């Protein structure tokens, strides 16, 4: 894909009738049964002040969602695992307002999120739950994904079902697994093979959410793709996911990568993702029952190669067909970078998948502005400016600075 082509997914017309989250035929015995008779009445739009419980409120997306909710005058109950500051993507501390922010110590890996009695009562009054908490790092032991992403979602569902509190569940577009073609928002389990343990856990979590929906829980699922820096500045708080890969590749630490030049990476600016999650929470009546792709700029590996080539100091990896790639044949100095970093992202370099965002569009989430190349440049420029990419920053004064000072 190039700058000249629309960067939003090119998809057929929406299939009708517009599906809602389907009813599974077999209920999951692990999902708690509904205890309360009626769901909370839905608020007719964003003008009403809501109380929103946000898990993962200090996370990359969670902080931005929290900031948007409080900025719109809503009250956020921020479930925090650690008692740290909420730092926004722009590096500044979150200054809530005009809405209020209440911190709640909690841990999604514990039943009832490990909330204290008082906090449980607070949570019971929440109008919405936005479940952002998840581990998104790759390469962790499988049990960690199961504990946080799957069990964590099960515990959040327990909390939501207890009060029939409408839930916005933040999933990932990559629940589509290893496949080519177009992934639709209303698809979930289509016999796909998850690309890694992270995707597997998010697929399992979303399956739990759908089952809870079938049991009557009002639910919206938002599926971001790869969450990256801000649309206009490229600024990013968390240098995770694609960032370590870019670092290894552009520094020439690994020169050969298994991948297809037409494999597609979808980079979703964090502000776009947070906007959609927030909208889903505040306009829940429009979003209920829907799954929305929060996707961004599609970039093929060839696009990436072309943009990386614009930076003299960057090495551009050679992408070789996965069938021809042999990790054993890598030079010894490159092998650790493959094993520890790039191999974790291998599915992303071979997947030729595009995400249909018709439902998100119908919900009012505009497609990203054209210019996937320009967006990638902003991400790279930001990382160069901070020294994350490029040669390490020099320390101390420039000893050999050819000053050319012209002061009197």
């Amino acid at each position, binding site marked *: 894909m190039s700058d000249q082509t629309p960067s939003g997914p090119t998809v057929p017309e929406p299939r009708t009738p517009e599906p809602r989250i389907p009813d599974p035929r077999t209920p999951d015995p692990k999902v708690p049964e509904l205890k309360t008779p009626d769901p909370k009445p839905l608020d007719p739009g964003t003008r009403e002040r809501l109380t929103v419980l946000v898990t993962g409120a200090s996370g990359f997306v969670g902080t931005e969602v929290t900031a948007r909710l409080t900025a719109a005058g809503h009250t956020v109950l921020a479930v925090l695992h650690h008692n740290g500051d909420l730092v926004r993507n722009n590096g500044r501390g979150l200054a809530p307002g005009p809405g209020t922010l209440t911190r709640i110590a909690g841990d999604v890996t514990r039943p009832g999120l490990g909330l204290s009695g008082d906090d449980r009562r607070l949570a019971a009054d929440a109008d919405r739950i936005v479940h952002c908490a998840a581990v998104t790092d790759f390469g962790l032991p499988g049990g960690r994904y199961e504990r946080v992403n799957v069990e964590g979602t099960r515990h959040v569902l327990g909390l939501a079902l207890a009060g029939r509190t409408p839930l916005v569940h933040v999933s990932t577009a990559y629940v589509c697994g290893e496949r080519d073609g177009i992934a639709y928002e209303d698809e979930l389990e289509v016999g796909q093979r998850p690309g890694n343990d992270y995707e597997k856990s998010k697929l399992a979590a979303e399956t739990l959410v759908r089952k809870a929906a079938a049991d009557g829980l009002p639910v919206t699922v938002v599926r971001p793709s790869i969450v990256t820096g801000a649309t206009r500045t490229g600024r990013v708080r968390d240098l995770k996911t694609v960032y370590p890969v870019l670092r290894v590749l552009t520094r020439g630490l690994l020169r050969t990568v298994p991948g297809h030049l037409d494999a597609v990476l979808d980079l979703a600016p964090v502000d776009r993702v947070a906007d959609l999650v927030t909208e889903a929470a505040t306009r829940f009546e429009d979003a209920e029952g829907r799954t929305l792709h929060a996707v961004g700029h599609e970039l093929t590996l060839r696009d990436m190669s072309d943009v990386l080539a614009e*930076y003299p100091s960057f090495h551009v990896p050679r992408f070789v067909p996965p*069938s021809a790639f042999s990790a054993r044949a890598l030079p010894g100095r490159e092998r650790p970078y493959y094993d520890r970093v790039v191999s974790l992202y291998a599915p992303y370099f071979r997947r030729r998948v595009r995400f249909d965002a018709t439902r998100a569009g119908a919900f009012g989430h505009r497609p990203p502005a054209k210019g996937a190349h320009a967006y990638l440049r902003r991400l790279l420029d930001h990382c160069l400016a901070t020294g994350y990419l490029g040669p390490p920053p020099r320390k101390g004064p420039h000893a050999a600075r050819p000053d050319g000072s012209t002061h009197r």
Partner: protein
Amino acid sequence: MILTEERLQDLLDKSLAELPPDTEWAVTLEGSIAEGFGNPSSDIDFLLVSRRADDLPTMPSLLFVDGRRVEIRTRSVRQLAEQFREVERSAGRPAGISEDLLNRCQRVLHSHPLRGHALVEEVKALLPGERFRRITAHWWAHRARQSLRHALALQCLGESDEAVDWTRAALVQSVKSWAADLGETYLEPKWLSMQLDRAGRTDVRDRYWELESAAVPPGDAGAAHFHLTACLDFAEDLGLTDLPRRPERLTVARVAGVTTWQTGERVHVVRGRRDVFALGADAGGVWRSLVLGRPLPRVLADSAVTGVTDPGRIVAAFLRHGLVRLAWKGGGTVTPALPLAAPPGHVTPPPSTLQPLLSVGGAAVTGSRAVDLMPLPADRFAAAAMALVWSNVVVENAVEDLTGALRRGQHRVAELTARRAVHAALRGLFSAHGVNPLPADTDLVRRMELLPEGTVPIGVRARELLARGVRSAEDGDALRAELRRFIALVRGAVGADSFPLSFDSAYTWRATLQLGHDWLRMGAHLGAELPIEEARDLLAGNGAQPHPAR
């Protein structure tokens, strides 16, 4: 004025008499004589002004009257008004005002009416003189800043002689800005001495001439620096602002359409998807050290870490060739222009004449500091390189097939396979010399005339081999041995590291494929033709070695 009113009226009468009778014109004298400058050989420039609605031609009529060259231009009031409006519109961004437009306005505003005084004065009133002074002063100041920034950059880059020339350009531009603000808006620097005399500030005039005539010994960076500082001080005293005192505000910035492609150790830089520059080892090292968007001093400090001597001069070459640009923080791209000249733009050096031009590992270069322009456009350069890699694969493949055919006594098969190997070797030879697209296989030996004379023996040998038949095992063994010698001959012509690669191990096979992928990456970017579809299969599909390593 050096000519009396009577003399001017007489020249005008005679000039108009030579033109076909037409509209009633107002006439005004423009140019150096009207400004109070000029000499006996100066042109007479008459501007004829009409209220006609239609556009009048821009080209002047040239006459010779009483031994003087007379230029007659015609403009309608509407055209002149549009000129003034255009200058007004761009007043806030002087870079957008062309020298020609400013000059046209200046000449009208400072002209001397000869006929139809009322109309001429009506036109002049369209742009008040005071306003025009400010615009012109800003225009010159903008140019002075650009030249000074460029001079400062060149000093940092170690190009002090070049910096001195740009400092001198800035000196003229600075004093022209100052003079314009006093009403001396005549653009050409030709009459600057008279403008300075007329300005009535002997201190400024004398200081200008002192700086203008200051001797700066060639290669003396200290003297160049001192001169630049003195000129900056002078410009500041003249009232120019935002002068470049600190090089930290200069940044090395990206040029759209410039990309870097490395194959093996060779760094290739493609400009505008069209021109390929091959960098020698030192130049490549300096190029690789560039982090665009960083201040120039930091870029230079980073480049110094490469250990390359005088890296700044290599960066200066990158700038000249338009591979990077300089920007002034808050001031956009530095676009220096000599007084009354367009910005020089990017330099395109003569193309490299090295032969052979290419190896599978990259383009040949003239030296370690070289920034050599390839003599063929980028897409054909990449296509030739891919064809070269592919010919290596095919040669080796064909020799293997020949061996197999001889083992089974398949003489006809062996004959054809040997020809295939010869053709592939020739394709490699042509590709290494930058020939792309390639002639048809059957024409290759006929087209040897395209290649340097030293390759003639290869053509002779190829003809012989292509005519050879295989009737027996002995014939076949002899042919195979001669084919090996032929390949060695080609190898000798194009360089041992170029052709053919040895595929006697999995390692060398993989190395070849990797180079193939490097070139494919560049070729894909440029939309270059692949040698044949099989190459894509090999490079982008199976990728497995077609024959087991021996």
